[in-house]
């Protein structure tokens, strides 16, 4: 449901106000609220999923309980609700020596960075807030916005651990943007469009037409992209900015309660966005794997969501299996492996398209 269709639909509904500014504001606000809901629900579901995935990988049962009441509900389903309530009611501590304004600003900056990117994520053939003609570029640009918030948080806390975390994170995210971006270029070269819907249209007609299987170079590009974005979202094995055992809590050491949960919320929102981009760019977006089957609009949302969920599950799998890299090893992988590989990919895709395309 794009802003445009909502706008014209509302105009048709109330002819007297057709084209007025109020309707435009409404038709922007409604999808934004819907997106906020998506982000919130996403966080709730993923916190629960992460707990359960971790528990099953570690031979535990995770949050459990019977009935409602003081327990965490059946199978611990209310665990996240309890978590959220706890976070909301927790004392909000701002360190005395912190830079108060920046300290308060930082979580919002990070959250906005994560939130606005979702606008351009297509969940179905028509289920998208705004299909920009520069959609994928917009997502990349807004995705790197969050790093400003992380640096702000690290700096303003006036804590050496936070500073370490902030600095590490800045270096890491800025570095990994490059291979991720170069892998996206591969998609753009093939499809010839920056629009998210355009990229998905290109991949219509079953699994064989997905960009990941277009040629060997795009296959590599998918993995380069995926690993880079795992690093960008600060997930294990690249979670050095938070590195609990080294940096206590990294850039969010001094944050508590709701402010802290904004970091959390945006981490999960970021995971959603990068998985959505990977699904859109390489895995056919909302198209069914088998051409012509289950390919209507309702199924589109199903396919998109299941692709996203699958990729997020892989990220969780990483987290509960791998140890953490060291900061210089992380940089080495980025600059000495991923960057050359993604440059070769671009040439490779170009040459492949020239001869076989």
């Amino acid at each position: 449901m794009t802003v445009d269709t909502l706008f014209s639909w509302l105009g048709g509904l109330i002819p007297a106000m057709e084209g007025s500014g109020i309707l435009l504001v409404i038709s922007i606000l409604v999808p934004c609220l819907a997106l906020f809901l998506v982000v919130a629900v996403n966080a709730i579901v993923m916190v629960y999923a992460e707990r359960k995935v971790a528990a099953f990988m570690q031979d535990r049962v995770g949050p459990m309980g019977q009935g409602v009441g003081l327990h965490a509900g059946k199978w611990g389903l209310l665990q996240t609700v309890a978590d959220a309530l706890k976070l909301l009611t927790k004392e909000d501590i701002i360190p005395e020596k912190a830079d108060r304004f920046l300290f308060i600003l930082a979580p919002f900056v990070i959250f906005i960075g994560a939130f606005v990117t979702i606008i351009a994520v297509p969940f179905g053939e028509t289920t998208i807030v705004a299909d920009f003609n520069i959609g994928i570029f917009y997502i990349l640009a807004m995705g790197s916005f969050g790093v400003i918030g992380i640096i702000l948080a690290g700096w303003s806390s006036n804590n050496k651990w936070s500073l370490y975390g902030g600095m590490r994170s800045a270096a890491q995210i800025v570095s990994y943007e490059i291979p991720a971006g170069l892998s996206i270029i591969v998609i753009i070269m093939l499809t010839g469009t920056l629009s998210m819907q355009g990229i998905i249209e290109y991949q219509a007609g079953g699994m064989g037409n997905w960009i990941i299987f277009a040629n060997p170079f795009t296959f590599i590009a998918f993995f380069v992209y995926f690993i880079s974005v795992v690093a960008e979202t600060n997930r294990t094995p690249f979670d050095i900015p938070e590195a609990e055992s080294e940096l206590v809590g990294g850039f969010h050491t001094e944050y508590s309660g709701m402010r802290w949960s904004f970091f959390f919320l945006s981490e999960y929102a970021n995971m959603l966005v990068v998985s959505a981009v990977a699904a859109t760019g390489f895995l056919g977006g909302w198209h069914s794997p088998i051409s012509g089957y289950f390919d209507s609009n309702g199924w589109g949302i199903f396919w998109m969501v299941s692709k996203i969920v699958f990729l997020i599950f892989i990220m969780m799998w990483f987290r509960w299996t791998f140890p953490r890299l060291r900061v210089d090893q992380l940089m080495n992988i980025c600059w000495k492996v991923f960057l050359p590989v993604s440059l070769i990919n671009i040439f490779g895709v170009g040459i492949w398209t020239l001869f076989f395309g």
Partner: protein
Amino acid sequence: MGVIHGEEMVLNIGPQHPSTHGVLRLKVKTDGEIISEITPVIGYLHRCFEKHCENMTYDQVIPYTDRCDYLAAMANNFGYVVAVEELMELKVPEKVEYIRVIMAEFQRIASHLLALGVYGLDIGAFTPFLFMLRDRERILDMFEMTCGARLLYNYMWVGGVSHDLPKGFVETAFQFLDYFEPQIDEYNKLLTYNKIFVERTADIGVLPADVAISYGVSGPNLRASGVKWDLRRNAPYSIYDKFEFDVCIGDGSKGTLGDCWDRYYVRMLEVKESVKILRQALAQIPKDGDVHQALPKKIRPPKGSIYSRTETPRGDLGFYIESDGSPIPNRVKMRSPAFTALAVLGELAGGWMMSDVISILGSLDIVLGEIDR
């Protein structure tokens, strides 16, 4: 390539920090990520163990030894009672010796499992930690079966042990060993040979054998540097000379001899050796017999002094006991293996990166309760 030097910053790791393994403070001079100097500050857990000992009878000291190395309380009990018995020239029944060895080796497995798991946690891997704790739990269950306690046992007494092995203990122990041995391969698959884990630990914090010896480092930390020294083999106490086992040493197979990976892996190998000892001891243990030596209520060792050493999971634990013939020791001094391991940290950690310091500290497997006493 030139090296850029920035302004040095002093950073306190601890006393409250997730990776200091207790209440330890590391005063660290850093230039960005690079550590130039590291000074351990200890004493946050000091509770006058040795002074306390001068005010209580020999038996009353035993619960205090539990609380020194609280992750290997059996081994500490063992070290102390062996020292007192040596001072009294007391011979304990054979069954007691077997029970003590079985408990000490189970304790070694439990302690090493925690050390290995927590080390994985230091490196950032959460899952192996829980796997190892799950299996350690079963050992604690067996301790609970035997003496009712899970962490601080007060099990070994001068001249015996507090309780006989319960019914079915030997069977339970064999069941556990059968279950446990394949688990070691799982740990290896999950953590030991993981590429990232090896990258993070191999060639890091290399402890050469001569430095280790000059600092008095002992136990797995020393053996990882390639020195074949184990008191169970080199100066056998109790009945360790009856069992077949290998003294595992580091071989530098993933990096340099004596690096963090070697220290980790030696512990993993020692767990296997402990299983070997346990299988022999459980098979040979005498069925009948008393587990107490007849002793007066108040032990009065003859006038004199003794220094006795045992091999705990952390290394060479020494007790110096001076008796003036009264029921209260004149002086008790404990030589802690973890203390020497921490002392060598300053030597090891200079020049490494922030994350490596955590990795090196974890590989030394220190217990602050024993360092501060």
